[in-house]
């Protein structure tokens, strides 16, 4: 078994998510039936997307394991490989190596808890996977609250699904944008501000927070104010990766490898690590 050999896949669909065109969701289908039916992942895990001749990139799996037959990856155009990926078309070949990493503990620690999902910008991807998984297994979780914000309405991901989620009565969804925008009738304010207004109760709670470091920094005080502790908060770290297997040395944060021991860590674990991410 060669962990460096990707599963062959094809691009089945491409959706441009954001108004600036920099974020696209790729629907991939694994070519080999055996690999396709054997695939199973935990929300929060990622995969290495492989473009022969360009390289590999670690991307969070945006689809829930309950969405069978295909995998969704929302990719931001940032460097060599992502730029090449953004130029690709439906039907083009691509490789998938994974699932990698540890994922959110949806079947263990998070069961039975009141879940608070807080996300900013395009960090929402693996939380989409998590949310859909939890909705498919609704009775296994308590109250579910979502606070998700982007700079402008056009930068929100999964806009159709956001609308549908807002209409459910088994979910408490707060979508916000940083500033007033024409045509936007929803909440206005930075994610930490809205989180502070929602004031989710920490009782039997678990908070899954994904976003730029600055957003996390400002989200913690309003949560701490109502009693949230560091071991109730789950973060997903990012770092430069190459092998994705905990060997090549690029992604280490002190003694842990973000690709192998993470990317999900509790805030309590992160506080004990050197700030090298």
């Amino acid at each position, binding site marked *: *078994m060669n962990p460096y050999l990707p599963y062959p896949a094809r691009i089945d669909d491409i959706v441009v998510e954001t108004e600036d065109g920099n974020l696209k969701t790729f629907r991939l289908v694994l070519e080999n039936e055996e690999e396709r039916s054997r695939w199973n992942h935990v929300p929060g895990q990622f995969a290495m997307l492989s473009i022969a001749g*360009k390289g590999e990139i670690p991307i969070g799996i945006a689809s829930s394991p309950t969405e069978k037959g295909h995998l969704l990856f929302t990719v931001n155009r940032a460097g060599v490989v992502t730029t090449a990926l953004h130029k690709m078309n439906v039907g083009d070949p691509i490789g998938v190596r994974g699932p990698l990493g540890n994922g959110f503990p949806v079947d263990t620690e998070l069961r039975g808890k009141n879940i608070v999902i807080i996300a900013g910008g395009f960090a929402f991807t693996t939380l989409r996977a998590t949310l859909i998984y939890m909705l498919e297994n609704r009775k296994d979780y308590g109250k579910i609250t979502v606070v998700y914000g982007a700079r402008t309405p056009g930068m929100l991901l999964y806009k159709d699904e956001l609308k549908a989620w807002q209409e459910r009565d088994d979910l408490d969804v707060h979508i916000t944008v940083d500033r007033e925008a024409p045509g936007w009738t929803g909440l206005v304010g930075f994610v930490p501000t809205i989180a502070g207004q929602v004031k989710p109760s920490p009782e039997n709670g678990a908070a899954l927070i994904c976003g730029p470091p600055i957003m996390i920094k400002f989200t913690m005080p309003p949560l701490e104010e109502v009693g949230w502790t560091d071991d109730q908060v789950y973060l997903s770290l990012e770092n430069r990766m190459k092998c994705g297997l905990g060997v090549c*040395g690029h992604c280490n944060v002190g003694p842990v490898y973000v690709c192998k021991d993470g990317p999900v860590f509790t805030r309590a674990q992160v506080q004990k690590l050197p700030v090298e991410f």
Partner: protein
Amino acid sequence: MLPKADFQSWLKELSGQFDIFGPKENGKGSVDWQRLEGGELPDLAPGVPKGSIKTFFFPQPETLLEFSARPKQEDAFRLKEPKETDNPRLLVGVRPCDARSVVLNSMPYEQDPYFQRRRQSVVLVGFACSQGCSTCFCTWTGGSPVGTEGLDLMVFVLEEGLYVESVTEKGERLLEGASTQRQPNDSELQAVQKIRQSAPSGLPEAMEPAPRLKEKDLMALYNAPFWQELSDSCINCGTCTFLCPTCYCFDIQDETLKGKGRRIRYWDSCMFPLFTLHASGHNPRGEKVKRVRNRFMHKLKYFPERFGPLSCVGCGRCVRDCPVNIDIRQVMKELLAI
């Protein structure tokens, strides 16, 4: 026991089965790993050759995968495993520290089929150290100048000839092929015993940092004030990572030429400023002190916490070749004092 000439003819015979490599004067003023032909003996001055043997276990470049880059081909841009092309290899003249490095590297590379394939096929014939040099400190890291960890055969060089003992079954089978070997006599056995007993104590101030470092608080070591001054002189040249037998970080890149492509792995260095650079421009270890500290913390604290031993065999290459004289032994002492 094998007289020198017989050892050589045994090697010559083995060269029909293996590509044989050993330390040899390379015409540029250093002794480094090269192909030995026709039963040549390795050059064995006290201490270690210039380079380590990691190149035989994770060579650079290593082709991980291949692909066709011709769009019209049916399997274009499909990554596939390359075909095996290397002949089996035998390394003769391996010092115990270098042999031990293979065992240590095997720990992070446990799931790596490329490394493990070479681990199975490369034969290691070690030469015990009857004396060290000023930069040797294998006993500090859990090793020994007469240690056999990682070796298939161990050789003690005596006046009368070479005393060879097998360490693994693979080694024993190869030794059976040395048809002119004879049993050692008592004085020869005594000579070997003498080396075994005296060699370790010939090294300066042996100490045991590993268990003591394990007990120390990680963040206390990380936040120690000496790192700044230590890293000031470092020029991030990467020599230490290049020569170190237990530095194993790598980069992966895709290359295409004339319709054929390959994904290759080659050595990378955490000493280089771009090692941790994100596509966004963010660089968690953009400052030199962070890189220098990370390398030593990895070798002396993070790796042992995960796998047990220090990620260092005390070969002294970094001490010998660092252009600004940074000494890992000094770092160990500083850390132990925290």
